[in-house]
């Protein structure tokens, strides 16, 4: 019988090894990553119902393939996000849908309305922004989620994306410039 509380001290990679023979070890891995995966999927699909469905499939697939998982330098979370990325890509391909304003669907937002700028964002701007984010390449969408939703450091993002910190900053710069240009174009078009 494994001591469940000892799992908390293990790294993800050690846990993944244990999870090949222990359900509770897999449960601990799940606890560590389920919210991150859910947020990632939510912002890539824009729908709470799809976020639940795809999050479930990510972990089922992880469990299915865990025996083949080997630590080769990249963190366990990168492996998990690769599964999520592939499933979301398949979802977009199969449904040919694009994210549309699902904000009303969602419960449990951690509201940041203390930010005065947040009040100035109209629902039309929100919808537009969501669509523009959804039109970015997957790695850029992932970067925005890690930076703004998960509030991760550039070093942590670099490790997860297998890039240098400088490359992450450059990618962030390119992404924000692209968004600025597309927002300006959309604004000009709506006038």
């Amino acid at each position, binding site marked *: 019988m494994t001591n469940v509380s000892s799992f908390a001290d293990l790294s993800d990679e050690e846990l993944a090894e244990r999870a090949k023979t222990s359900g509770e070890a897999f449960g601990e891995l799940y606890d560590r990553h389920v919210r991150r995966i859910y947020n990632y999927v939510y912002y890539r699909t824009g729908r709470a119902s799809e976020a639940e469905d795809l999050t479930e499939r990510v972990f089922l697939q992880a469990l299915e393939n865990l025996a083949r998982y080997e630590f080769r330098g990249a963190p366990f979370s990168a492996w998990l996000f690769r599964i999520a990325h592939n499933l979301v890509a398949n979802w977009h391909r199969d449904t040919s849908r694009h994210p549309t304003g699902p904000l009303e669907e969602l419960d449990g937002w951690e509201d940041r309305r203390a930010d005065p700028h947040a009040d100035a964002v109209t629902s039309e701007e929100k919808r537009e*922004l969501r669509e523009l984010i959804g039109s970015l390449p997957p790695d850029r969408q992932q970067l925005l989620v890690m930076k703004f939703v998960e*509030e991760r450091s550039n070093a942590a993002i670099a490790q997860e994306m297998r890039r240098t910190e400088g490359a992450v900053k450059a990618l962030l710069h390119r992404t924000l410039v692209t968004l600025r240009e597309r927002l300006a174009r959309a604004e000009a078009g709506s006038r």
Partner: protein
Amino acid sequence: MFLIKRDDHYGREAEALATFVDDLVAGREPTATVEEPLADVVRLLHAELHPVQPPVAFVDGLRARLVALAEQRAPASAIAEPPVVLWRQPRFIIGAAGVVSAAAVLAFVARSRIQAAKAA
């Protein structure tokens, strides 16, 4: 020279923007200066992208199912997957194919030389 200067400028701009984003996300007053339209995009993203909490019932329900499934699979996979014998491992097969290819090339070269010697 022009390219180096341009890269320097781009690097500085990317660095300043990263600092601006980090300050804003951490709730600090931004110390770096970035051009206003870009700063607006950062503020918009910061206002719009929040952590989303999945429903508790969903998280707990899925956890219970996954742990049960993992417990079922663990002993089964231990029995069902015996270690792969050496000669069936991909690296062995690739290595063997390499040796055979090299031998074939050597044989071809040797044969060509013998034929050339005979012809001469």
